[in-house]
């Protein structure tokens, strides 16, 4: 893993509060970026990020020192974050009475699709990409974000997703081709015509 986080598990094993603080310092940005790109909503990413670390801390309290020192922090945190997010989405679907902004973001991701004006502004705009990401199916979205936004290796992503490395590679590549099609409709159209 990265050099800054190398002694992190040992630190968590010897002194939980100190180790956890370091865990937050090193990985808070990655967890937040992951949740932001997966949910597409800054307020939600913030809440779920807090929830992720709270769960991580509670779990660490119950772990033995050996278990803590054997941990691979980034993949472990991302697993928690993914589960927190999935639970959140499920809760929102089952209880649609939730507050308006949450409801919006959970039930109608793709609705914020780019209008013609946005198309006009910048073709390769971030907003377009974010909207396109929101259209990917859950597992593919998680895989693509972990691999290309957070920058984890395929092996780490496989650990988070709980599936073989090959499956992750397929998810990522399929996800990317869907993204490309969403971003460049003309190209996709052309391919359909020629095929």
């Amino acid at each position, binding site marked *: 893993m990265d050099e800054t986080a190398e002694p992190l598990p040992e630190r968590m094993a010897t002194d939980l509060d100190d180790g956890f603080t370091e865990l937050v310092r090193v990985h808070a940005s990655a967890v937040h970026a992951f949740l932001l790109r997966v949910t597409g909503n800054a307020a939600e990413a913030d809440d779920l990020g807090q929830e992720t670390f709270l769960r991580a801390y509670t779990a660490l309290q119950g772990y033995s020192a050996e278990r803590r020192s054997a941990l691979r922090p980034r993949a472990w945190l991302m697993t928690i974050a993914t589960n927190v997010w999935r639970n959140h989405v499920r809760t929102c679907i089952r209880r649609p009475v939730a507050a308006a902004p949450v409801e919006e973001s959970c039930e109608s991701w793709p609705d914020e699709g780019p209008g013609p004006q946005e198309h006009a502004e910048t073709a390769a705009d971030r907003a377009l*990409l974010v909207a396109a990401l929101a259209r990917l199916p859950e597992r593919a979205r998680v895989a693509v974000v972990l691999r290309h936004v957070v920058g984890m290796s395929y092996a780490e992503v496989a650990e988070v997703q709980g599936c073989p490395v090959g499956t992750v590679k397929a998810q990522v590549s399929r996800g990317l081709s869907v993204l490309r099609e969403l971003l460049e409709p003309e190209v996709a159209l052309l391919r359909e015509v020629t095929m």
Partner: protein
Amino acid sequence: MNRGGEWTPQPESGVEAALAGLAGPAPGDFAARVLQRVGIPRDRYDMYLHLEAPAGGLYVAYGAQAVTGAALGRTLAGPQAFEEAHRARTGRSAIPTTRPLPGLRTALRTGRAKSLVIDLPELTEAERAALDAVRTIPRGQLRPLAWVAREAALPDDAPVTEALVANPVPLLIPCHRVTFDNGGPCDLRYGPIVGAVLRKAEGIDDALVGLSRSGTAFLGSDTTRIYCHPTCAHARRITPPHQVPFRSARAAREAGYRACKSCRPIAA
């Protein structure tokens, strides 16, 4: 921000590059709020932020009550470099925040940081005494190494230079106001260029530094018969016709002058 080191961006098509561009740092106080919510005691970690200051701004880290470290923006690659340097020096994590310690902004704006609480447990007794003496040098004034050693009640310059090289809180501990005993600026912590920027921001003009360098160690007034360090507030009030330059305290004493009681030049 890609904090992991193992992923190297290959030459990729547009989508991958654009996706990598979507990773940004978390909002300023996200990590701090996480720790607060989880309930980690405040004395277990430091918080830090980047404040407006000359020479690239100042990163300031602080614990529950006191400032514990700082670094000038120009001497560092970025916030992550500061976090790692702080961790290496103090063994404590520095968590980004957006709210400064009370009094910090004022201290930086006015250049008067004397009353700010600074806690440096990793230094030796002598080094701390030397830095405490450095902190008493008023804004816009210069003092030689020997003066710092005398004020800190240290037998010689050695611990003073050590403390100045180490100075973990530059700018708030104004080591740019210390000169060598010959009057030349003594920028041991960050080099002469940054030191010159800091002095200029305080209005220490090069003419005064030059005055000391040309051999004038003290400035006396022939109306009051008192001699001062040339940058002392009292020395600056002496009108040019009444300025009497001295090469040493002995020369001033022999001319019948007494030492200023506010800048306390060494009565050699």
